[in-house]
């Protein structure tokens, strides 16, 4: 735990939630939070509460839907699943992220002081 955790960039949480739902299917809020933590290898500083702000935002945009159901160990929980529009949005945003990270990668790969020669 000595290494400091990553702060989430604005908007990345929404994308993570969408991707999680797309990959895992129906999930409740806790499940989504756990899944993100697991996948990131606990490298992300996730205040689990922020998941709920993200969930309501995605719901308002019609990208995910929600319904009450029962969890595997018989607990009442609200389950979320991605909608068709959400998938479309996910593919757009994912492509954008890919491009952005590629570019960032290239920019950061420039050798230091290379223009001073």
């Amino acid at each position: 735990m000595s290494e400091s955790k990553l702060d989430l960039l604005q908007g990345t949480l929404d994308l993570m939630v969408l991707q999680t739902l797309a990959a895992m299917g129906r999930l409740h809020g806790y499940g989504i939070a756990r899944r993100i933590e697991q996948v990131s290898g606990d490298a992300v500083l996730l205040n689990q509460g922020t998941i709920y702000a993200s969930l309501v935002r995605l719901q308002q945009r019609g990208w995910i839907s929600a319904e009450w159901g029962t969890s595997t160990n018989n607990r009442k929980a609200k389950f979320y699943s991605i909608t068709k529009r959400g998938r479309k949005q996910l593919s757009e945003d994912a492509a954008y992220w890919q491009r952005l990270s590629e570019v960032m990668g290239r920019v950061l790969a420039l050798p230091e002081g290379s223009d001073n020669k």
Partner: protein
Amino acid sequence: MSEIWKTSRAWFERLGGLFHKAQREAELAAELESHLQLHVEDNLRAGMTREAARRDALAKLGGVEQTKERYRDRRGLPFLETALQDLRFSLRTLRKSPGFSFVAILVMALGIGATTALFTVVRSVLLKPLPFKDPERLIRLYEYSADDKFAYNVVSGGGFAEWRKESHSFSDLAILGEAQYGLSGVAGQLPERVMASNCSWNLFPMLGVEPALGRGFASADDQPSASATVILSWGLWKRRFGGDPAILNQTIHLDAKPYTVIGVMPSWFAYPEQSVQLWTPTYHEESPELMQAIDDHEFSVVGRLKPRVTEAQARTELSVIMRRLHDQHLDIPFVSKAANSRPLLEAMVGDARTALYVLLAATFCVLLIACSNVASLLVARGATRRRELAIRTALGGSRRRLLREHLTESFVLSLVGGAAGLLIAYGVIQWFVTTRQDMSRVEAIRLDGVAAAFGAGMILFCTFFAGATSSFSIKSHQILSSLQESSRTHSPGQSPVRLRKALLSLEVGLTVLLLISSGLLLKSYEQLRATHLGCITENVLTMHVDLPDAKYSQPTQRLAFFETLLDRLRTLPGIRAAGIATSVPGEGYGGDNGFTIAEHPPLPLDKTPYAIHRWADPGYFAALGIPFLRGQIFDKNQRLEKASEVIISESFARQYFGAEEPLGKHLLTLGRKPQKIVGVVGDTRHRVWERPQPIMYFPLYSGIRERTTLAIRSTSDVTSFALPVQRIVEQLDPELPVSDVLTMGQVIGQSTLDANFEATLLLAFAGLSLLLASVGLFGVLSYIVAQRTPEIGIRLALGAQRGALLRLTLLDGLKPAGVGLALGLAGAAAATRMISSLLYGVAPLDATVFVAVTTLLLAVAGIACLLPAWRASRVDPVIALRYE
């Protein structure tokens, strides 16, 4: 596109979030609880104790309440929620100070009401397109007067014919003439004189207007040989013929001649003027000679431009035609050399434009003053709430939130004020429409959606002006100091006071501007009223008598009528004098004639002078008290074809004879035998605001065919003679209508109506703003004094002189007034030049008006400041120091 959809969808969802609050809250709580349970169970499975498991779950979640708050921020519309909160809050505060609220709302209502009303008038009259087809392609055409002095002269029949034949710029050209008819009564109705217009048959199709009933004129109706036809206005049809459709194809009598009614125009149609009650075809009504004459300018011409032809091109083309006509007829004087044009709308609105814009500007000034007053009141209130605001800020209330509260408060005030203002505007417009029936397009004035939108815009403007200005006084860095502030040692924060003084200067400046403008208009109105027409105006009654051609075709018949009428009138007890002329002074231009003086060497044709003409009976000059300067009145033998004398006015003699003796000389007018000058009379003005112009008087008893005005003068109240005189006319000819029975005072009143109206209205605005400004001055100074009472107490206790304190406070209030005065005077000096076209006999920088306004303002400001200043000097130091 999809972005907009996404955003708006989210907003709708969030808007929905405002409702079913409790249910959503419960659901959220349940969801978070289930989250925690799931987490705790996982933790337990990982081997934690129950207590540690729960603590870890809570920590990871980041706190239940915090999560809920974050969730709420996303769910509903916090902005709207706080706005509603602000609204409730400001309603409560406004209710708690009803006096303040009432004054503020009243002030706003007056400002918004007046501005909206004037805007409606300006928009309806000046900005709305004419209700015709493609009105922007319609232009009014003019000739330059032959001497090029007047650019918008009416057109000759021959000139029009030439334009129509030769020009290619227009898809159509129509001609209109003025007319009046005596409408004979049927079944016991009185005969009536009606204003009419004769127009070429193509006018209505060109305007794109069809009769509501029947048909329009056909080209076959518009010829000398056609049988007489007439189209009625909606109003005349309703009033005189009971709105009965059976009137179509019936015969009515105009000037005792039969006309077939072929149509009725729609009720909204009023062209060329509101007063026109029927239309007849020009070429049937006017003589073929007149319609061909190129030097007799009598008609209005309207044209519709062809697509892709500009007004300038069309005007150039007509000018070329006009010039050719002039060059071909060098033997005829008074043939114009050029044509002119302007858009039809502009031609119809004419002089009303400047006046309306001035009034609109004035109302806007009043609105600004009203806003400043409300802003100033809000600042004062804000200052008394400084501690409260400071505490709220200290507790984390954001400055934006405080600003929003201010805006909400001024919004509520403006909204209520605006609603009342719209009612006021409605009333004002009703009043305006009934008062100004004479103004063209007055029928188009209506409070409609756009005007309401303008009113709404004004409400927003006031909200931001009053709210934003007043919140300038909230300064975050002062919060601490106002918390530390102890009123014993502190005078109030300077910033709100400075702001109020700035607002005050603005108010005073605008007030000065309004006062000076209205003062100038008022003075020019007084000048107009005091102008001497050149005749007696007390106890003089005038009325129009028009002998119809059909019944009085012979000069002898007309002569007999005039003579009998005058004989009868002069024997009526109480009547001092009676006379008949074609127009009396103040009644208008009337018409002119070119002439040459037989005894003078001939002038080149295009230098032929012209002068106003009148026909008068021998007793006319005495009846109206027009002074006889030299020579004698018309001889009794000056009748019918023996008439060969002329009387000239003083300025005629001065202008054309100079030092020479005019008596005995002869005037040659077109187509008439030489007329011997037998007398010179004093000058009269044909319009109150026009300089006296040369006039020549010909004998009425020559039996001319002209519309005439009868004037009688009595020793006592002349209006009581209206009926007896009309009865005498009726005895002579029961079918003869008498119209426009007016005293001379009313004749002048009508022609100065505009000036009177503008001056009165502007004065009302100026008075209102003076009141508002002085209330503002009084308020600000009272406030300063109240805030400084402890300080004044200390000064007094330390031995300050009461007189010095009085002077100090007085100066404190008069300083912003002085700054405002200076601003206002400078502004007025620039602005009054714009209204110079409305002024008569007054320079835009009239010293008396400027000095009077300055004095008035200083006096009012002094009085407004005196009471608070006096109160300051009367402060009892003991009470003041015990103030805490």
